[in-house]
């Protein structure tokens, strides 16, 4: 309404719109997100819109799933390490530009990196979960610990992690606060996850 009112969301840390970005209908505080595939843009969606774009056949918009799949232990750990990504990084396939992209947490948010195809292929061939990650709406993210685990996680949650780490970032490597945000994220992700059913590969990609 107000001619300056549109700026309010940048001042409040709310950051999220009050209405569905697809149909302008009312939006619950807890709501789903839809990816606009070509722009790799994440939009807030009301339940009817989320349902509408939930099928795998929709091309322009795709609803981000809620389920999290887990591979324990992660079978491509060495190949993943060879990518040289910082902890908290995630990898997704953008079908708009047909390539695998890594997002690394950093002081200014996230840094996007295009992956070396040969190195990524090594991960892809060794991990069934890496092959099962759905294009655009899911990302592969790896948790280090006594046992290395990998998750096929909803991309909205992954970008949420990037934002949480950025807000707590200190120094070169993020420091203890950013690390704590990462731990909190993985604990919740672990709780919500289910083991990847064997021999259920969704998509075939190089």
């Amino acid at each position, binding site marked *: *309404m*107000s001619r300056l009112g*549109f700026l309010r969301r940048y001042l409040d840390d709310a*950051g999220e719109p009050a209405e569905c970005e697809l149909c302008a209908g009312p939006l619950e505080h807890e709501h789903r997100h839809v990816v606009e595939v070509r722009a790799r843009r994440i939009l807030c969606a009301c339940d009817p819109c989320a349902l509408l774009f939930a099928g795998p056949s929709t091309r322009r918009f795709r609803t981000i799933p809620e389920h999290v799949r887990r591979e324990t232990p992660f079978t491509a750990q060495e190949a993943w390490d060879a990518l040289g990504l910082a902890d908290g990084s995630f990898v997704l396939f953008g079908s708009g530009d047909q390539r695998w992209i890594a997002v690394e947490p950093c002081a200014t948010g996230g840094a996007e990196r295009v992956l070396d195809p040969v190195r990524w292929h090594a991960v892809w061939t060794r991990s069934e979960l890496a092959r099962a990650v759905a294009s655009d709406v899911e990302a592969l993210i790896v948790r280090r610990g006594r046992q290395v685990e990998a998750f096929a996680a909803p991309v909205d949650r992954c970008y949420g992690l990037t934002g949480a780490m*950025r807000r707590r970032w200190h120094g070169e490597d993020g420091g203890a606060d950013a690390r704590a945000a990462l731990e909190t994220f993985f604990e919740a992700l672990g709780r919500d996850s289910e083991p990847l059913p064997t021999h259920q590969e969704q998509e075939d990609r190089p």
Partner: protein
Amino acid sequence: MGEPATWLEEAARIERLLDEIRAVAGPVAWLRVEELVGSLLRLHGHGLEGLLGLALATGDPGLLDHIADHAPVSGLLALHGLHPMSAEDRVRRALEHMRPEMAQRGVDLELTEIAVDVVRFRARGEAIAAQAGLLRRSAAVAAEQVGSEIDRIEIDGVTAHGVSGEIHTGAAG
């Protein structure tokens, strides 16, 4: 209210640019844009807050009126939550300015409520149905004084006369 066009044009330009960037930027770039815009606003907000303190310290009795009458100053202070006059008083003041024109056409508008996303008015007078357009425009101008995003403006008397009383501004979001 005599708003300088350049100020409004600048606001519209920022809104358009942000929409355009949002449409082409990936999530990572957009995170930074959001942070940058917030940071620039807060920087200017600090300046405004200091300046307001200096102005108030002069003890000028007409200061509040001067601020409320200055559209860009008033709008920016409201945006930053710094306005020394309450939102209700600002809306009522704006209505006061428009009252003569409304009276001439046989209507009047009164503020009844400012809620989170809606501002409610009551319309009075003989010519409500005929002057629905004027009432809506006046209500929109007055509600703008709130300074945050208002989804809806409701005018009670106008609904009662069979004219839709709701204005969906369409600018929110």
